[in-house]
């Protein structure tokens, strides 16, 4: 009996959370235009055209708040964040984004992440691409590293 009560309490709690989340989501719609991302121009080494395109596409998803990306010739690594109330749907959004990008860039291998670590690393890489002329090999190596990190399981 006590056990049932415990389970019941938790279910109630989850239901309660779900409701308030819907409510907050509606409020969030108004702030969707504040997505920040930078366009990386780097003609000398690897062209970041695909990354910039991808960022614009991801920015059209109303849940996203920030997006970072980098690419080599055949790999595209993208990391984004969503508004906090949408984090319950994180895995779904991630799936949708990946699907969308795969449609958009059929010739590329695409890796999408929402992980804090990937965002940090890609942000750093973007900045480096922006300011320094990184040799092509270094860029490829760093993207590979980020991808392998994102695939690492616990």
């Amino acid at each position, binding site marked *: 009996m006590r056990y049932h009560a415990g389970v019941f309490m938790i279910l109630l709690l989850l239901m309660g959370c779900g409701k308030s989340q819907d409510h907050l989501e509606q409020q969030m719609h108004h702030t969707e235009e504040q997505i920040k991302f930078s366009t990386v121009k780097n003609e000398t080494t690897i062209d970041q055209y695909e990354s910039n395109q991808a960022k614009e596409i991801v920015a059209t998803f109303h849940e996203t708040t920030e997006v970072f990306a980098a690419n080599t010739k055949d790999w595209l690594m993208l990391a984004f964040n969503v508004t906090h109330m949408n984090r319950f749907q994180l895995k779904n959004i991630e799936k949708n984004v990946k699907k969308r990008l795969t449609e958009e860039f059929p010739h590329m291998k695409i890796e999408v992440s929402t*992980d*804090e*670590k990937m965002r940090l690393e890609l942000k750093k890489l973007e900045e480096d691409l922006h300011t320094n002329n990184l040799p092509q090999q270094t860029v490829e190596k760093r993207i590979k590293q980020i991808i392998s990190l994102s695939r*690492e399981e*616990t």
Partner: protein
Amino acid sequence: MSMKSKPPFPPTSTSYKQTEQAHETPRPILLNCIKAFLIGGTICVIGQCISLFYISFFDFTEETAGNPTIATLIFITMLVTGFGMYDKLGQFSGAGTAVPVTGFGNAVISSAIEHRTEGFILGVGANMFKLAGPVIVYGVFSAFLIALIKTVLQLLGVI
């Protein structure tokens, strides 16, 4: 000599239950819950900070940072337990310090420290999981059942 008759005693256990409950010190449930909320929440925020530290300065992702975070929290628990503060904190915050993984650590570490006087094999070794054992046993068994049901359902194509 006229003996006074002995009064009927003791009362029945059902009638005594009422007497007893009327005198029982009521548990301050609301206050306890507030304390548990604040301390438990704080421990989780500390966990979040540690996890962010591992993500920022080491090659850990949000997912993989969980392991070192828990290990660090348990290390801190060892120090707090060893210096005799965890039991005082536990009296104040109740579930606030019992439910986070630090409470699991405290259960193991306090048992280990306590039974040192019985030696390291029969004392520390044998009693370490005296309190935390059921958590592992039923955690594993329920995980087994749930994973089994889920896998079978997947194999049958239900989900």
